[in-house]
Every structure is written in C-alpha cells, then in structure tokens.
C-alpha cells in the first residue's frame, strides 16, 4: 500500500521485515544486541499468550459473560516490545486496550476483565505493578502521566545515573487521542518541564470507524518536533523495533533528557470493541494486507529461521495457552456481583453526610422488602 499523509509507512524504524528477516539499523540494532534466543522466545510467548487471552475475552463477551471487550488483536508487538523495555520502577498510564502491556507489568489478566464484566471501574492495585488503571476518556491520562513525571522529577529520581533508581513514565494512547486537546497539552507541559515521559501512540489506523486521515494530514509523529519533543516512527508490528525505540526513549526520560513521542504504526485487526462492525467501513483487502504483516508470525519466522523454536517449546506454549484460557474462563465465572451497598463506598476519602444519608436510606428501603417475598420490589 503506497500511501501518503498519515497513512504512509515510510520512515518507520524496522528491525524485522514482515517475512521475519532481520534488518540492520545503525542506531537501533545495538539496542537489541543483548536480546538472546531466550529473550526472543520470551517475547514470542508473551504475544501468543496475550492473543489467546484476547480471543478468550472476545468469546466470553459473545457468551454474555462480559458487557464489552476491547480487543488488542494485532497490536501485540507494539505492546510487548515496549512493555518489555520497561524497568520495574517505571510507571505506566495505559488507555484501555493495553492488555499486552498489563501482562508485561505482571497484572493478572483476569483482573482486566472486572471492568468489562461491570463489577469494577478499575480492577487492580496500580501500586503493585506501577501500572495505572485503564482510562476510558481517550487522552485524559496523558496529562496524569505528565504530572506524575513532574512529581518524579521533584523526587529526584531522574538523572541520578543509577539504573535501579532513575525512573521513566509512559503514557499509551491511540491515533484518535492525538486530536484531543489533552494530548496536545501533555506535549506542551512535558516539553516545557522537560518531564521524563514517553508518549507512546499506537496508531492502529482506526478510531472506531474513522481512519487516521480524519485526525491528521501528516504522519502523527510529525507533531512532536513542533512541541520541541523528539519523535520516532516505528513499525508497530515489529516487536524488536518497538523494543529498541522504547528503550531509547526510556533512557532519554530517565537520564533527564525529557519527553519523546513514539508513533507505533500498527493495525487494529479486530473491531474497536465487541459492539463495533468494521465491515461497514473498511475493506477485507486492507485487513488481508495487514494480516500478512502479523506481529506474531513475523517473530515466529525469525525464530524458525534461526533454529530457535524447538518443538517442545511450541508444545509447552500451546499447553500454557490452553491453561490460560481455562483459567480466565473460570476466573470470570467466579466473579460475583458486588453488593448493592458497595455503590456508596469510596465516593469520598473522608466522611460525607450526603452519601452516608443516601446509603442509610437505601439500606432501609431494601430492608423494608425483606418480608415481601423474593424480588418484591424489583
């Protein structure tokens, strides 16, 4: 597809062709030189497991177990590549499709489904993983990430030179979010404060039904320089390139070099969510074009060509995938309905007479039906 404007695939950093052949890059090849076969198999395994999880969640939605699901299908390289470049002390602000990044941060994937099942607005403790809750308003969290990075600066955790201490903040967002004022304000605030921030855009080509041409007439990465923010375009289906450009941006952030904008050029192979129908607005030829660039197939081809994908490994991974699917299904089925009164909890951190009074009234109201038979008031 030879395209112009935001759809062009020129200028992408690529270390692995769609056929799985390595490409040398003077700046970025050194950043993956230490990734041995074990590390590559690890990334392959991550991507396979996350895709299995994603497919399982889609099935659970179709079975009525989830109210909605936002698939990450096709974006595994962008998420695993960037996620595996993170250090434990780095802090991530995801959007709502970063299931792969969540996996790299050690979040139990089942916990991601609490939100989509409608029993929780969050689902995990961000402090346990340095992985913030999903944010559904598409660019709001890019400002939170900026502020968090400003706090990290004030805490003296940037530019100390200690790799165990220096810390970066990463915000993930999509092509649609680049049109939001908040992202542009995040670029302004992070630039003038020299905040240690990586703004990681997964340009998956589609914001529900609007192609990137509805958001921009230039490649999205071109926006960075106008804010004084270095930018890079990367093949988002190339896990090695995504790892390399993220590692570079993280290093800049941790060392006090300020923010970076990364545009990972990828493709949303699935629907926006399970409520969407992409057949109404995009061609199967386009989907087929991207299917030929699948991130998992690409790394698999490399591992096979290098003789680093033994049959035992693949068999073990198959079994682990099946076990993960089973565990996810069981976990979702076991998720109970929250108590009615829990709706009144945690509205405020301190006491609040209005909420307390409404809660007390509602509990009394519910109790008044106890003698009235099953479901008397419903």
């Amino acid at each position, binding site marked *: 597809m030879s395209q112009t404007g935001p759809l062009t695939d020129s200028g992408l950093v690529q270390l692995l062709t769609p056929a799985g052949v390595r490409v040398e890059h003077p700046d970025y090849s050194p950043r993956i030189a230490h990734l041995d076969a074990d590390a590559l198999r690890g990334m392959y395994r991550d991507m396979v497991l996350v895709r299995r999880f994603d497919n399982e969640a889609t099935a659970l939605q179709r079975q009525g177990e989830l109210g909605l699901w936002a698939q990450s299908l096709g974006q595994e390289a962008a998420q695993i590549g960037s996620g595996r470049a993170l250090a434990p002390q780095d802090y991530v602000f995801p959007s709502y499709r970063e299931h792969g990044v969540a996996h790299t941060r050690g979040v139990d994937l089942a916990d991601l489904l609490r939100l989509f099942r409608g029993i929780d607005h969050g689902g995990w403790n961000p402090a346990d993983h340095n992985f913030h*809750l999903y944010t559904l308003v598409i660019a709001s969290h890019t400002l939170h990430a*900026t502020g968090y990075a400003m706090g990290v600066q004030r805490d003296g955790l940037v530019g100390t030179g200690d790799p165990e201490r220096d810390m970066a903040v990463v915000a993930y967002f999509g092509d649609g979010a680049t049109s939001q004022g908040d992202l542009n304000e995040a670029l302004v605030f992070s630039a003038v404060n020299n905040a240690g921030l990586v703004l990681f855009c997964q340009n998956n080509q589609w914001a529900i039904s609007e192609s990137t041409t509805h958001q921009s007439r230039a490649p999205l990465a071109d926006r960075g320089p106008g804010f004084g923010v270095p930018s890079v375009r990367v093949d988002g289906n190339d896990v090695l390139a995504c790892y390399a450009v993220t590692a570079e941006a993280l290093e800049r952030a941790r060392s006090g070099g300020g923010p970076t904008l990364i545009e990972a050029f990828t493709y949303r192979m699935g629907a926006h969510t399970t409520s969407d129908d992409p057949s109404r607005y995009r061609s199967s030829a386009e989907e087929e074009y991207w299917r030929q660039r699948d991130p998992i197939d690409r790394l698999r081809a490399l591992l096979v060509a290098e003789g680093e994908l033994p049959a035992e490994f693949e068999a073990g991974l198959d079994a682990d995938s099946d076990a993960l699917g089973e565990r996810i299904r069981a976990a979702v089925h076991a998720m109970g309905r929250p108590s009615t009164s829990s709706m009144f909890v945690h509205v405020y951190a301190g006491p609040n007479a209005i909420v307390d009074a409404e809660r007390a009234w509602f509990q009394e109201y519910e109790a008044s039906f106890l003698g009235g038979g099953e479901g008397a008031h419903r």
Partner: protein
Amino acid sequence: MSTTTGTQRITLAKAINLGLRRALESDPKVLLMGEDIGALGGVFRVTDGLYKDFGADRVVDTPLAESGIVGTAIGLALRGYRSVCEIQFDGFIYPAFDQITTQLSRMHYRSQGRLSLPVVIRVPYGGGIGAIEHHSESPEVLFAHTAGLRVVSPSTPADAYVMIQQAVASPDPVLFFEPKGRYWDKGDVDLDAPLVDASTGETGLDRAVVVRPGTDLTLVGYGPTVGTCLKVADAAAAEGTSIEVVDLRTLSPLDAATVAESVRRTGRCVVVHEAPVLYGTGAEVAARITEECFYHLQAPVLRVGGFHVPYPVSKLEHEYLPSLDRILDAVDRSLAY
C-alpha cells in the same frame, strides 16, 4: 519568611495568601500551580510573595491551559503531591471541566479507595467588579452536582484563612470558590486558629454556620452574598423584622441540617446566590427544607439570584445580581404569606 501569628485585620485576599503560605510551610508536598501566580503573584495578587519565598518548583507558573493544569495536578497527586491550582477567572474553568468531572472526582471511587487525589482548585468567582465577559460567573453548582468533589466558599477573611488550609489538608478534591468581589473586604483573622476542633476532631469544613441570630426569617447565603444578607438583616431590623442569617460555607456536602434547624424556629426561608436561580443551590435548599420542615413553614422557600441569561454586560450587572433591595423584596413576600 517566618509565620505571622496573633490576630490581624486583613483582606480576604491576604487571608488566603497567608493560609497558602502556612500550607506551603507545613507540608513540603504542597505546590501551587496556575497562570501568572509566580513573579506577578496572580492577577488578584493572592499568591503575592510566595514565588519569591518558595521558588519556581513549588509556586509553578504553568502554560495557559486549564485542562493541563488540573490534569498534571492529578498526576502529581498520584505521586504524593498536593497541588493547589488557581483558575484565573471563573469563566475559564470550562476547559478543565472534563478533567475535574471525569477524572479528579472519580479516581478514588474508580480505584476502590486505593488512590486519593487531594487537589484544591481555587476559583475567583462572582460579579460586581465591572468586568468583561467570562470574568464574573458563578459556576459552582456544576461541581456540586458531581459526586466525589467538595465545593466550598468562604465569605470572610477569617473563614478564608482557615478553610483554604483545611481544603489543602482534605483527602478529597476541593473546589474552593473565592468571592472575588470580596477580596478587598477586611476582617479580623486569628492567624493561630486551629484547623481541627480539639474536642470533636472535626474541621467544620462541611458545616454551615448561623452568622446572625434572628427569629422571623432565615436568610441563606454563601460566598459573596453573605455580606449582602447581613446588610439586609440590618435594614429589616430597623423595620422591626428579626432575620437569622446562615452562611452555607459548603455546597458539597450541603449542610441542610443547620438550615433546617433554623427554619424550624423561624418558619420562613429565603436563599440568595449570584448564580442563576434555575437548578441552583436555592432549588436544592428549598427542596430539602420543604421535605424536612414542611409543617414548620409559614411560606414557600423563596430564591433570589441570577436570571436564566448569560452573565450580562457589566453596565447591567447590578440589576442581575441579588441586591439589597431584591432580597428585601423577597423577605417582604415571604412575610406576607
């Protein structure tokens, strides 16, 4: 920069300034953020001198982007900082409305109490200063209608000094509406006033107070209208009517109990605010008072406030704002029932 102590007669603006100074001194995590709050000291000089004494890292001149101010304050709060954001004028808070209502108000709820956002948003609000458009508005109920936020407004220098410090110390986000038309009103301020009542352990930040006792009618105001209500009470007293004045101080949570206690004694209630009457604080107070004091009421609860029009040009604002005469008219109508 030693802390001033004792009782001083100072303006409301100076009281907030000294309250912020004390907050900055007592907690190194407290930051001030806003437009022109640094070297200039804010367009109303509320942060005067703080930049010089606490430096650019703690008194932060931000880019001119209100959503960015509140959004980054949220991020700083997640990192353990307590930001006090200044929105330069009431009418400029709307770009931050999304961050305030979809993020700031809900992070504690969304996270099941794991995350708290102790952010204060200071908003100079209200009219009467002859300003151009967007500089005289009263958008407080937009925030009072949003669960998860606290919304308060002081009416005196003494309250402003204490309440701003209590707001900074609050674990919940606080919209702190400052009656800009009263910035230069002076009052006695006890600079050693405690932030927490030693006997109850409470701040009182969620309480209304009776600021003038009376027997014939309860007049309810907050922020800029409390002073007007007190003048109304003086004028009515000259005609033999005893008016009790309640300063709400907080709109969220609303302390309807203090108003109800008063109305049970007086039987009549008039609510006064600059914000439009339609769907306003007066409507909420009237509904609650009607529910709680129905058999004590001698008259319907009446409201005096702005009209259902955009804030008018300044040459007409004195007709738009609840004036002494319009409040007295409502008092007379209530007494006539």
